[in-house]
């Protein structure tokens, strides 16, 4: 009986650790490539500058995606 309990407890603990490691590391690896902004950083707006010429510039207001969210709930 004692051997059975020991074996069972060992399997449960080892399984818990194994699953935690597998899920945790797997998700960490996956998320390490996706953690980042919730806004795109590729935006720009077209404007005609007073100094002459057609130019690609972001707007002052930041609506072109140059800003990122502080986080996500």
């Amino acid at each position, binding site marked *: 009986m004692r051997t059975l309990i020991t074996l069972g407890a060992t399997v449960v603990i080892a399984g818990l650790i194994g699953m935690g490691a597998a899920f945790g590391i797997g998700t960490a690896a996956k998320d390490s490539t996706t953690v980042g902004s919730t806004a795109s950083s590729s935006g720009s707006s077209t404007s005609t500058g007073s100094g002459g010429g*057609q130019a690609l510039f972001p707007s002052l*207001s930041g609506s072109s995606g140059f800003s990122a969210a502080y986080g996500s709930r």
Partner: protein
Amino acid sequence: MTAAAVAAATAEQAPGPVPAARKGFAAHWPHLLPPVLAAMVAAPWLGRGYLLGYDLVFTPSMPLSSSLLGMGTGLPRAVPSNLVLALLQQLLPGDLLQRVVLIGLLLGAGWGVLVWLRSAPNAVRAVAAIAYLWSPYLYERLAIGQWAVLIGWAALPWTVHLCGRLGDAARERAPAASVRLALLLSVPAVGGFAAQQICALGVLAVGLTTTGAARVRVLLVGLGACALWSLPWLVPTLTHPGGAVSDPAGVAAFTARADTRLGSLGSVLTLGGIWNGLAAPPGRDSWAGSLCALALLLLALAGARRLTAHLGRRLSLGLALMSALAVAVAVAGLVPGVRVLFADALPVVPGLASVRDGQRLIAVLALLECAALGFGAAALADRLHRLQLDRRLSFAIVALLPLVAVPSLAWGLAGTLTPVEVPSDYLAAARVVDASPGAGAVMVAPWGLYRPYDWNNGRPVVDIATLLMSRYTITDTDLPVAVGGSGVIRSVPGEDPWSARIGRIISGPGDHTRQLAAAGIGFVYLEQQPPAVGGGTVQGLAGATAVYRSPDVTVYRLPGPIAAAPAGVTSPDRLHLIEAADLLVLLVLGTLAAALLLPSGAPLSLRRPPVGAATQPATEDQLP
């Protein structure tokens, strides 16, 4: 556990000096664990470059300016932390300083737990130190870049330890113990109010549960020091032009959230639950991650009885009470009635915003739980021993469990927090601004505080330009928070009235040059990615002159007349008040440090003369 076993455990683990049997490596091996764990976290930080993410901003250059003292129209959230960084940057390069600070925090936290539990068995201390250092709490606060909060986390075990020493000190030794505690509490003061709140909970945990003169001593010295060291941020806050009130939207945005399958409360009780889903440890929301977290909590509960026997009922109760308070604050925004009350109070009660992200206070719960976990490992070892299994096996399993529960803490948060080089044109543009004649503050654009720079792998970080110039910079202080993964952004308005005014100007139609100049803006520091093509002036800045242009940054000088900055930035009375407070703090700090460091016999010195030099025979209390 039987009463006999409890008695035996109590006798074995009673507080007291380190057992004489422990010598050399056998006595001190747990002290190697914090460096090993710190190395596992910091291994990718060995190269040059800056670790940037959310609020974690160290820059190659941080010029000294009055805004670092708290002069400005925003609340002084980074005071005095950024001032201290700017001063230290006179001695060390910014990236090296960042490594010293972050790795120092990891070592300080781990060694603090070992010192606090110095009379416990080494295996218990080791498990406790590993669990405190390798926790979801550390991951989350590191991921969101709040290194200043982590100062409080690292200083907490030292605070509890020195409060206990002061409470136990004989009358002759009380002055030196008081000075040591006061000096220690100046460390979290560098982190500002958040770090100080954490350590104040530690002071209260000890102070409220001691009795008689010891209680008065601990509370008076501990809370008095906290109050005195608060002056550098408290004075700017009290003299803040808009009052220190905040928007009610902060309650919904910054209250704790579930990052496990154990619910919000379960997540907080397992030392996570930060409001920001992007800062939660990956995998913690899986069933396996949640079960690991739960297993650690249950093991800690299993060790609670032994911990109580070791620390004493009063201190255990004090830590439990403060932990309960921290958890209550962390989840307050989730309770419907309390949430409404909290939201109603935020715009009225000054300073209440300091607890809207209450989850950071659970550092005190982390300390309690991790110490209990060490004793839980001892309880498990006893049970396994009865089953003919090696006691060391259970300690090894429990010691590994925190690492398995948060594996992504390794290798710089699983490679997400690694060094990057700041493009040189950001600095060059900042130098041009500082060297340019003309009045006015610098508006940092595009309007938004956090940037997903390409060169930072798209990881959001506070706009680095806000720290690169000695000229006053102004940017958006609203905090955009994405809700529910839907891409919907809910903005939590900031507390800076000048910033709000600029935001209204640039969101309006037409040309903004005159309006910005009339609002006190002399320069626009415009960041652009991808690089601009051709020349010209950005829409809305007609008549402005480009004084610097590079692929990443263009700086415009606005034509005059430029209006004066608001009184919060320029008021000499406010500046003198802040300077006086800072000088007072430095004076007291210097005096206390001198009292500890000066040799005996010198004025102010608290050092005791050598025993042999005493004219009177030394009493037992005077012996070292």
